């Protein structure tokens, strides 16, 4: 069991001992654990059946176990995730689920299904989320997913079950919003690294438990004063990013990360399920279609860019660090246009390409140079 600790430490412990948490949860509840490859998996449906969805993330260690299964030019994140499975670190999972995200994560899902046989679910999530035609398709796909979950668990999911799950998820999302809002303060009461632990824990821990701790944390943050100069206010955006050491380094050289646009951050929780009418699956589908899209789904119009820009305004951002997992095509395709978009809006950007492990010394130099650039008016 994980020892009881202070609220902020609790989130950190959940992230650092995620496997222990999952095993404990299973022993405590007898429920099934479902590994999710992406934040487009409609977790509410699984949760309604008493399943705990757990995001599959990497470990940021060098690995050489995925080479026989994945071509080396597939992104380090997809390889790192598969490596965790191959190394047996998620051997407590009862099933895995993927909603079509990108080819690399799909491939990791397929390889996991072949070599680590557990029950697997695939939802054909449309890419053209801007088309009204996507709504009936996704609602239909969710209907199939729901039936498959019911068959797997041997219990039917009632409307009341769905309502409860939606309510628990929405509550948790609202609390995350509240916590993020506190970061708008001139001297935020929580660092970017700490906020990242809270956001990552959200994808690993039972939402009710997470919400309870989050309520306590928000109360503490209302009076918390950090004994540090916040420095430059930064935004992180781009591919999947759960590198807590990187953000720690950034905040050690004169900055605070106040907001993000990552699937491991705001893109996971920013939108709620807005229940309109009796069809819960349609409402859930709408939530996933209307959330800030990952670049793979952001066409023909660009929905993400104005939302990101609005975040920079709302959070008083002075500079943006644009992070991209090596070989992540959808983000690579967006970077030139997004850089130009930010430049036009007067927001300085720093581009960094991420791997499973980072050259922290080089990145420190580049971040320091970037911060100097942001602060040049003060210098002269």
């Amino acid at each position, binding site marked *: 069991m994980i020892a009881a600790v202070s609220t902020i430490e609790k989130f950190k412990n959940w992230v650092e001992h995620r496997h222990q948490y999952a095993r404990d949860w299973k022993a405590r509840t007898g429920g099934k654990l479902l590994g999710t490859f992406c934040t487009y998996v409609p977790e509410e449906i699984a949760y309604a059946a008493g399943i705990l969805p757990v995001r599959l993330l990497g470990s940021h260690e060098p690995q050489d176990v995925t*080479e*026989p*299964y*994945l*071509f080396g*030019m*597939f992104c380090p994140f997809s390889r790192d995730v598969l490596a965790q499975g191959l190394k047996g670190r998620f051997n407590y999972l009862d099933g895995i689920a993927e909603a*079509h995200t*990108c*080819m*690399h994560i*799909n*491939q990791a899902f*397929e*390889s996991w*299904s*072949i070599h680590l046989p557990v029950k697997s679910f*695939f939802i*054909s999530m*449309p*890419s*053209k989320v801007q*088309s009204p*035609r*996507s709504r*009936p*398709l996704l609602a*239909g*796909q969710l209907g*199939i997913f729901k039936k498959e979950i019911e068959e797997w668990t041997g219990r039917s999911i009632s409307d009341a079950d769905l309502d409860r799950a939606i309510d628990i998820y929405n509550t948790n999302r609202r609390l995350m919003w509240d916590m993020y809002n506190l970061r708008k303060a001139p001297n935020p009461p929580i660092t970017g690294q700490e906020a990242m632990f809270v956001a990552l824990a959200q994808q690993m821990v039972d939402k009710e438990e997470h919400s309870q701790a989050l309520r306590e944390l928000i109360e503490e943050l209302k009076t918390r004063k950090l004994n540090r100069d916040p420095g430059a206010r930064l935004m992180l955006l781009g591919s999947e990013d759960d590198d807590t050491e990187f953000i720690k380094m950034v905040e050690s050289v004169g900055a605070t990360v106040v907001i993000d646009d990552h699937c491991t951050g705001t893109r996971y929780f920013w939108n709620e399920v807005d229940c309109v009418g009796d069809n819960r699956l349609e409402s859930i589908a709408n939530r996933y279609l209307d959330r800030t899209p990952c*670049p*793979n789904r952001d*066409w*023909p119009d*660009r929905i993400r860019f104005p939302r990101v820009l609005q975040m920079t305004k709302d959070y008083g951002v002075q500079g943006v660090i644009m992070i991209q997992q*090596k*070989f992540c*095509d*959808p983000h*690579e*395709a*967006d*970077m*030139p*246009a997004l*850089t130009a978009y930010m430049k036009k809006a007067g927001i300085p950007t720093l581009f960094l390409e991420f791997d499973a492990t980072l050259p922290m010394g080089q990145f420190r130099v580049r971040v320091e140079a970037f911060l100097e650039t942001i602060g040049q008016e003060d210098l002269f």
Partner: protein
Amino acid sequence: MTTKDIKRYKTKPFDSWKLAKELRMNHYREIAESRTEKGKKLLIGGGTESMLGLPAGLGEYVFFGGEPYAASMSAGDPAFAVECMEATESAGFARDLCAYMRDYLGSFLLDRYYFGGPFPKADFYLQTHFCDTHGKWYQIVSEMVGVPYFSTDFVPLRWDETVEGRQQKVEFFTGQLLDAIEWMEKITGIKYQDELLIEAVKNEFRTTSLWAECAVLNQAIPAAMDEKSMYSFYILAVLMRHRPEVVRFYEILRDEMKDRVANQIAAVPTERFRLLHDSQPPWYALHIFRYLEKFGVACVGANYEFGLSGGWDYKPGEYLRPAVPPQDRGVPLKDREDACRALAEWWLDYHLIARGIRFSGPGRNALVMHMLKDWHCDGLMIHLNRGCEGLAVGQMEIRLALVEAGIPVMTYEGNVGDPREFDEGRTLARIDAFMESAGLKILEE
């Protein structure tokens, strides 16, 4: 066994080859001329797995497909291809993005058309999205050129798709095709004619079915068609499968294939080992296929050129055969709704490449196994293609499945369009080693 003991088949060049070349060159000329007063007509840009017949209802037009254009420049002038890619990279795009996209964007940025003159800017862009790059590619281009863009989203069937799931996907895609028609009418101001669409989609069905027939004929021993010649033939279905002259071309090719098979006219006269290839080739290094022939190896096809713009009726574990066009099955094609539904069903049911990109794993492995058996192949040669991640999906799993099944398989790393990522010496050395393991030596000239 000495060289003189090797059985030798008759061989001769394809009669259809000249016609294929003419049709292809006329197409690229038509694209260039569409931007002149003399040859002016509607020019539509996009990916060639778009619904090429869909704009037919607007009247006369020419479709400028990005992928085969990039392949042409990589094959014909690798130095120009590199220049284009460097221009794209200078504009901030990553070097590991789709090689075809980088070729195409660079050609636009340099304002140089590989076939001569300035880069032909389209009147609008029409795309179908089924790999991660598709939807983004023409979003970028339409922003750069400043013309409208529409893309349909292709959500393929699973290998074990349910009736319910298939119906949802058919409705989704059919609806988008109808949306595309409305959109094209709106942005061009041209009244759409359903009867022209119906003729075009019938041609698409016919062309893709005929190409599959040609591919099936290559199951014969000796193979009538070699990989390098196939690249000259399949491309017409990719470029303009909706046009009647292309239907006619494939009828001629099919008949010639039948004649060659009946008379044992071989593509490789010393055929003694048959390979299947996986993924697109490195276009600038097609001579590797000629090198294989020196060992008596016939490369008899690939999931890539068979499947791309090929209509295949596939039942896992049972059959893989040319799909029967809807007009031959009595499917009513009276108006645009009928035509769009038939087109959606054709692509969903019979386009195996798109399905393999979304769903690799056991389904795709089984398809490759099936092809190896039907085409009487002794092994598989996998191009680990850094320039097309879509077709790289599942490749390592296929390799592993074949190794476990005891089927010879070799891999070589390269890039469909970027010669900077191809090591010819190393590739030939890998071929030598693979041949040695198969007990094959270079035959005397």
